């Protein structure tokens, strides 16, 4: 089995993995994810991932900025979207 680079991210919608990327290898790109006609625009650039724009009332997902390896996933509650590292170093974050 190939060793994990530790930079593998998953984009999930309603608990289902839509995409998996190795951030250390993947090309810069923009992905639009839809949930009930509302979109989240996910940006991958320079090995980092964030939600660039979102059609949701609170914009919490956008304000979270780049996914950091501190362990907290980027979550868009209204659109059931989660972006997380698949190999988290910690088991949970008290928040």
């Amino acid at each position: 089995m190939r060793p994990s680079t530790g930079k593998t991210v998953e984009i999930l919608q309603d608990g289902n993995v839509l995409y998996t990327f190795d951030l250390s290898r993947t090309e810069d790109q923009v992905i639009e994810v839809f949930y009930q006609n509302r979109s989240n625009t996910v940006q991958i650039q320079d090995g980092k991932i964030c939600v660039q724009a979102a059609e949701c009332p609170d914009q919490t997902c956008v304000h979270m900025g780049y996914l950091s390896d501190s362990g907290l996933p980027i979550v868009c509650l209204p659109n059931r979207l989660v972006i997380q590292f698949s190999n988290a170093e910690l088991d949970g974050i008290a928040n």
Partner: protein
Amino acid sequence: MRVNGKWYFHCLIPALLLLALCGCGKSAESAEHSFFALDTYITMQATGPDAEAVLMAAEEQMQARERQWSVTNPDSEIYAINHSDGNMVEISLDTAKLIQFALDMSAQTDGALDPTIYPVLTAWGFTTGSYQVPDQDTIDELLSAVDYRNIHLKDSSVTIEDGVQIDLGAVAKGYIGDEVADLLREQGVTSALINLGGNVQTIGTKPDGSLWRIGVRNPFADGNLGVLQVEDMAVVTSGGYERYFTDEAGNTYWHIIDPKTGYPADSGLVSVTVAASEGKRCDALSTALFVMGPEQAADYWRSCGDFEMLLVLADGDIWLTDGLNNTFTLSEKDTNREVTVIRHETK
């Protein structure tokens, strides 16, 4: 191929083992499940017989509790209480227990926790998303109805006074987390971690016997201040940084309101992390201690002692109780922070 007498070690026994493991009957398995409920993202992992089925049952239980206790759901018991026009309302035993717990914690913390703060929270926009600073008259008027003693609970009947609105949001996640942990333990789960949007509950140790590693968020920047290593405990953090808005002048207002002033608690703390065996206690205390401030929180801990806590002060210092001294490790980039250990004996 030469066949020798030892072929059964290489073929038959592994085959028999395989058959035994695939047999019917409950053997321990590990499972994971994540979903959205209680206005947050919930993740669970568990090891035990039929772990997959147990986690699905746990989700159903949480969804049911949300329907029962949500302040905004018109079919919830809480909604019924808040729309009772001063009349007595019959509630279920479970809801009565939850309310009794909230009232007990309010009394124990001398009102630093108060489940009647909801109208003030709404005036600031924290329930609607339309943030604003209410004028003093509005705050004074709304504060007149804020007092946990305005909730009259007797057995399974509750009456609230005119203008009073009850919201169990400050204790519900911890309470529900405890119920889920009980369910999992009853079903033979020996190792689990449930994370209800930052309210962490653990059962036992990790499957390999090592302690669970729980990050404590840095209130000032991205990343974690450090890691707590725990087993069989709940860990809950309350922080101003979780929900706040900034006005045009650059002032920050967060969602943890001091029930005595009607303003965001300004006690010198930016986050409080509580670790204890019961999630509901952690949940209630993390809010109450935030309102109390560091000195009062330390005094409270000395008088109770059945929990541990880590306080992050506005100036960046950390205070932690001596029970956490050996379980908390500061992140490398935070090792120059001033750390004070709170002990039982006073000067």
